[in-house]
C-alpha cells in the first residue's frame, strides 16, 4: 500500500512536470493576442481587425465615463465605427491581467505612463509614429507630454487625450474677501499667509491622503511639487529616472520643505494622523463651511468634481483657484506638475482603431466633455470657449503659461516605488512613524535593480 501511494505520488509529479512548460519564451512578442498574432508586427492584440468595433479600456468610470461616451457620439455617427469603452477603477490590475492573458483591448487609456512603458517593454504595443503625425502633435500639445511616454531608446508609445493640472491651490471666496493675496509669488509668501490664517485661529491647510488602496498619493504629489520648485526639471528628471538616489540630499530637502507646510503644528487640523485618514476627495470640503475650517487646498483640477454640490453648481461664485507658486531661492521659473490619460494602441492591424486614436489625441476631441466639466485638453490650441466656466479656463491658462510642464513623478517611477513604497512611505512619514532619512532610505532600497 505504502509503495503504491509513493508510486502514485511520483506519477502525479511526473505528469505535472511534463505538462508545465518551463518558462514563457522571451524572444517572441509576448502579446500575441486572441487572433494568433503571427502578423509579423508587434501589437496584434485586441478585437478582429476592421470589424468596425474598437474596444477601449480606461481608468475612469461613472460620470466621467458618461461624459466620455457623450464626446464619442458625433464621431461614431460620422465614421460608422462603434467604440466600446470599459472603465475600471482597478485599471492597473485589470489591464495587466488582460494583456498577460493574451486578450488586450484595441486601445487603452493609461492614467500612469509607468504602466504604459512597462507593457510597451513587453512588446505589446504599437509606437505612435506608426499611426500619428509627430509634427502636428508637437505644434498643438503643451510641451513635455510626449517625453513621459518615450522609452530609453527614444520610441514613443502613447499620446495624451486628457490633461490634469496639479499645481493648483483652491481657496473659498472668503479667502480673498478677508484680504489674503490670490497671487503669492513664492511658496514662502504662501507660508506667511498660512501663518497669518493660523494666527487668526483657523488651520490654514486642507489636506487628506486617504484613497483606499492608493492612500498616500497626495503626499507624493507634494514632494514632486517641492522637487520641481527647489531643484528644477533637470534634477527632477534625474530623480524620476533614478540617476540620483531617492535618499539624496535634494529629495530630503523636498521632504523638509513639505514638512514645514504639512507637519507644522496647527497648519492642518488634527495633524499627521488626520491627514492620513482624511479622504482626499473630502479634504477641501471644510473650506466651504461658514466660517471656513481651512482655506488652502492644493489639489489637481479634478478636485472640483469632489466639491459639495452647491459649490459645483456655482463654481465661479464659490472658489478661486491660484497657481502653487515657485520657491524663492530654488528653480528660476514657473513649473507646472500634472498628469494625463495616455492613449496607446495594442491592435496594430485595425485601421478603425488607428482612426479613433488619431482623433482622440487631436485638439479636435473633447468639446462635449469639456462642456460637461472635469476635463482639460492637453493641447494648447484647444478652443477654451468650450470650457464651462471661468475657473476651468483659469486652470487651462495656468497650464499653458507654465515655463515647464512635468509629469507626475510617482506615475513615472517603477510601480514598486511609484505605486508602492512611495505611497506607503508618505503615510509612514506623515504619521511620524519614520523620519525623513529613514523613509527616503527605505524607498531607495525598494527601487528595483533590474
Amino acid at each position, binding site marked *: 500500500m505504502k509503495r503504491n501511494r509513493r508510486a502514485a505520488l511520483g506519477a*502525479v*509529479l511526473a*505528469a*505535472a*512536470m511534463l*505538462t*508545465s512548460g*518551463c*518558462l*514563457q*519564451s*522571451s524572444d517572441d512578442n*509576448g502579446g500575441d493576442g486572441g487572433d494568433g498574432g503571427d502578423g509579423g508586427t508587434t501589437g496584434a492584440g485586441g478585437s478582429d481587425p476592421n470589424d468596425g468595433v474598437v474596444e477601449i479600456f480606461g481608468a475612469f468610470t461613472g460620470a466621467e465615463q458618461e461624459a466620455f461616451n457623450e464626446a464619442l457620439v458625433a464621431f461614431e455617427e460620422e465614421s460608422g465605427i462603434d467604440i466600446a469603452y470599459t472603465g475600471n477603477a482597478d485599471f*492597473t*490590475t485589470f489591464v*495587466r*491581467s488582460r494583456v498577460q492573458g493574451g486578450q488586450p483591448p484595441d486601445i487603452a487609456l493609461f492614467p500612469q505612463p509607468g504602466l504604459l512603458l*512597462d507593457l510597451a517593454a*513587453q512588446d505589446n504595443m504599437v509606437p505612435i509614429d506608426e499611426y500619428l503625425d509627430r509634427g502636428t502633435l508637437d505644434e498643438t500639445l503643451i510641451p513635455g507630454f510626449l517625453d513621459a511616454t518615450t522609452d530609453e531608446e527614444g520610441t514613443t508609445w502613447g499620446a495624451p487625450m486628457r490633461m490634469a493640472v496639479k499645481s493648483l491651490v483652491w481657496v473659498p471666496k472668503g479667502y480673498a474677501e478677508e484680504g489674503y493675496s490670490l497671487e503669492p509669488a513664492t511658496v514662502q509668501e504662501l507660508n506667511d499667509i498660512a501663518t497669518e490664517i493660523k494666527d487668526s485661529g483657523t488651520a490654514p491647510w486642507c489636506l487628506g491622503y486617504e484613497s*483606499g*488602496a492608493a*492612500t*498616500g498619493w497626495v503626499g507624493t504629489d507634494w514632494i514632486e511639487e517641492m522637487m520641481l520648485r527647489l531643484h528644477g526639471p533637470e534634477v527632477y528628471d534625474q530623480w524620476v529616472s533614478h540617476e540620483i538616489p531617492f535618499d539624496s540630499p535634494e529629495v530630503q530637502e523636498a521632504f523638509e520643505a513639505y514638512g514645514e507646510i504639512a507637519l507644522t503644528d496647527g497648519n492642518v*487640523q*488634527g*495633524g499627521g*494622523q*488626520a491627514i*492620513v*485618514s482624511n479622504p482626499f476627495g473630502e479634504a477641501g470640503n471644510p473650506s466651504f463651511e461658514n466660517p471656513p475650517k481651512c482655506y488652502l487646498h492644493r489639489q489637481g483640477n479634478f478636485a472640483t468634481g469632489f466639491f459639495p454640490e452647491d459649490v459645483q453648481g456655482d463654481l465661479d461664485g464659490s472658489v478661486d483657484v491660484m497657481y502653487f507658486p515657485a520657491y524663492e531661492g530654488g528653480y528660476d521659473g514657473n513649473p507646472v506638475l500634472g498628469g494625463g490619460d495616455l492613449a496607446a494602441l495594442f491592435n496594430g492591424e485595425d485601421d478603425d482603431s488607428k482612426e479613433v486614436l488619431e482623433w482622440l489625441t487631436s485638439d479636435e476631441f473633447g468639446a462635449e466633455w469639456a462642456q460637461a466639466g472635469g476635463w482639460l485638453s492637453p493641447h494648447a490650441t484647444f478652443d477654451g470657449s468650450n470650457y464651462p466656466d471661468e475657473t476651468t479656463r483659469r486652470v487651462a491658462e495656468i497650464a499653458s503659461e507654465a515655463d515647464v510642464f512635468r509629469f507626475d513623478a510617482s506615475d513615472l517611477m*517603477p*510601480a*514598486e516605488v511609484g*505605486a*508602492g513604497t512611495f505611497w*506607503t512611505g508618505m*503615510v*509612514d512619514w506623515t*504619521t511620524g*512613524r519614520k523620519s525623513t532619512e529613514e523613509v527616503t532610505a*527605505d524607498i531607495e532600497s525598494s527601487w*528595483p535593480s*533590474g
Partner: protein
Amino acid sequence: MTTSADKADTTTAPSAGPPERKPGSAQPMKAVIGVVGIVITIAVVGTAFQAMNIYDVPRIMQAVVAIIAGVGGAGLLFYFINQLVEALPLRLSLKVIPYAFLLPAFGLLVAFLIYPTVQTIIYSFANDTSTEFVGFDNYTYVFGDEEFRRAIVNTLLWLAIVPASTVVIGLAVAVLADKLAPTAEKVAKSLIFLPMAISMVGAATIWRFVYAFEPEGETQIGLLNAVWTTLGFDPVSWLQTSTLNFNDVLLMVILIWLQAGFAMVLLSAAIKGVPEDTLEAARIDGANERKIFFQVVVPQIRGTIIAVFITVLLMVLKVFDIVYVITNGNFETNVIAVLFVQQIFQFGENGRASAIVVLLLLAVLPALFWQVRHFREEEANR
C-alpha cells in the same frame, strides 16, 4: 464477488481454448467502440464549446448548451470508458475499472490544481516576467524585505489569536444559548449567526466606519470614537495605533465577528448530540457543572472543535479582503496574502509574488496534513 469471479477465472483460464469466446477474455470490438466513442465525445463537446467562444451566442443559450454538452458529454465519456475497460480480459478489467473512472476527475485535478502549483513553484525561481531563471533571488529578496517579515509576524499573530478566539467564543455562545428557553435560544443564535451572511468586503466596510477617525473638535462619525469621546477622551486614530499590534487585533475582531456564528452552529449541534445519560451519570457522581462541561462534554465534542479550529485556521492563512479594504497593509498591518496581491498586480513582480505564495503554500501544508489525519482518525473510530 470479486474473489469468486477471480477464482472462477483462474480455474477456467488455463483450459480455455481460443475458438470459443469465454466471458472474461478480451473483446477487441468493444475496445474499438470505446476508443472511437471517447475520441468523438471529446471532439464534439470540445467543438461545441469552441463554437460558442467564436460565435456570439446569447448568454442563456450558452448556459443551456454548456449544461447539455457538459453533463451529457461527461455521461457519454464514462460510458465509453466503461466499454473500453470491459473489453479487457475480466481479471485486468476489474483491476483497472476504479482507476478508469477516477481518471477524468484526476485529470481535472492535475490540470487545474497540480499543474498551476508546479508552474508557480517554477516561476518563483524566475524573474519578474517569468522569462529567465534567477535562482534563489526572489527568496533572498522576500526574506530580506522588512515588509515581508512584518507580514509574516502579523500572519502568525492572526493564526495565534483568531482560530482560538473563534472557537472559544463560538463554544461559549453555544453552551450559554443551550441553557436558554427555545425561543430565546433561536433569537440569540440567529443574531450571532447573522454576520456569516455578510461578505468579507462588506464586513470590512462596515467596520471601517466603526473605527473611523475625525480630528478633535469634529463630529465623530465612527462608532468607537463616538463612544470614546462621549466618555471624555480625545479621539483616537484606532487603525493607526500599531503599539503592541493593537490595530492588527482590531482587524482580527472583524474576522472573529464573522466566524463566531459558524463555530457556534457546529459546536451547538455537537453539544446537543452529547448523550443525556453521560451528563446524568456525572451529576449522580456529584460532578459540578464546570467539571461536567470540561470533562464530559468537551471530550465528546473534541472532533468538532478541531474541525472548526482547522477550518478557521485555513481561512486565516488566506486572510486578504479585510486587510486590503481597511488598511491595504499600511500602519504595519500587512499580511502575506495582501503582500502577494501587491507584488503581482500592482508591481508586476511575478517571481517575488510566486515566491510568496510558495511560502504560503508551505505554511498551509502542515495544517492540511493535520486535518486529513484527524479526518482519518475520525473515520477509523466510526
